[in-house]
């Protein structure tokens, strides 16, 4: 699907977007946020949920579609305990992890997704001079496999691998981990590479 050079460029683009997102997250939490260098992954469908604990692990997923010059999905995933850590911090409360979130807690998590994805997409759009628009986020608290199934299934038309850019953000004190996935539709990112002047092999 992509050559090594193209993957490097996509990683760098991920870096620019994620750097912007980390700054926004840090401002929101008033805490230091560490960002891992984004990983560009081409892996079999079944392995995608491994980095968040496997297909049956209970996670929060905040999902957004983006379209315009590029099309794809953004998925922010927080394993159960991390989600409650984050919510407790945002709402200044001390609640134990459970099997549900109040409406207020959901809104807080959705807002984090909103801020992260808009800052990511804004950086991407500034850098490439492409017009991009992000949808209103959707919320789910469910099995990781189910949460990934929709964006992954779109790859089934092309082959047996998923392509995604994963960045992990770690909040300084409690080590709350937040996984941020950029999952472009099919080969939509080829047009992005062209836009920034990378020769794209066909």
């Amino acid at each position, binding site marked *: 699907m992509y050559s090594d050079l193209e993957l490097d460029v996509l990683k760098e683009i991920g870096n620019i977007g994620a750097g912007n997102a980390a700054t926004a997250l840090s401002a929101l939490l008033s805490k230091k946020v560490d960002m891992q260098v984004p990983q560009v992954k081409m892996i079999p469908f*079944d392995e995608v949920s491994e980095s968040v604990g*496997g297909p049956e692990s209970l996670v929060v997923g905040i999902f957004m579609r983006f379209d315009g010059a590029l099309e794809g999905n953004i998925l922010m995933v927080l394993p159960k305990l991390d989600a409650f850590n984050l919510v407790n911090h945002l709402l200044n409360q001390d609640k134990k992890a459970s099997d549900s979130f109040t409406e207020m807690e959901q809104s807080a998590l959705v807002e984090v997704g909103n801020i992260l994805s808009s800052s990511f997409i804004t950086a991407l759009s500034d850098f490439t001079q492409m017009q991009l628009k992000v949808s209103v986020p959707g919320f*789910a608290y469910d099995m990781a496999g189910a949460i990934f*199934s*929709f964006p992954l299934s779109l790859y*089934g038309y092309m*082959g047996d691998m998923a392509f995604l850019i994963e960045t992990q953000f770690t909040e300084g004190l409690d080590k709350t981990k937040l996984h941020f996935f950029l999952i472009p539709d099919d080969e939509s990112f080829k047009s992005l590479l062209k836009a920034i002047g990378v020769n794209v092999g066909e």
Partner: protein
Amino acid sequence: MLVSEIVRVGMAEYKVAKSPTILVSLGLGSCVGVALYDSVKKIGGLAHIMLPDSNSSSKKLFNPGKFADTALDALLQEMIKLGANPRRIEGKIAGGAQMFQVKTDNNIMKIGKRNVEAVRAKLDSMNLKIIGQDVEGNYGRTIEFSCETGILTIKTIGKGTKTL
């Protein structure tokens, strides 16, 4: 007492087995799990289908397990090879959820519903009856199919456990 072996059926896979094996698919979202069973021979099959239609594949060579139309033919063939009689085979289906309610310009998010419709149409064209179903909604499902009893157990988070 018989010890049941548990066999995992991953995304885009299909597997067949004899009693007392248990076939399992974890965390179905928009995917659909189709369990076929010959209750006399106690032969079962489970397909974990991702997409409705192989005609939309951009590649000519593809894994048949991904698509409703090709996966179910392949699954039935494997069951017949194992000794199942197609006239006795009945089906149960689960999955096809839409996990996120996000508005988009096209129908792209409705893949779960389209998977369910494609599976029903395909089973109908194969003259296989659907005797149980738990589909759509907005939540994930883990399914376990017992080749000993033909019972399909559906586990969810916060929505309880169901058997078909």
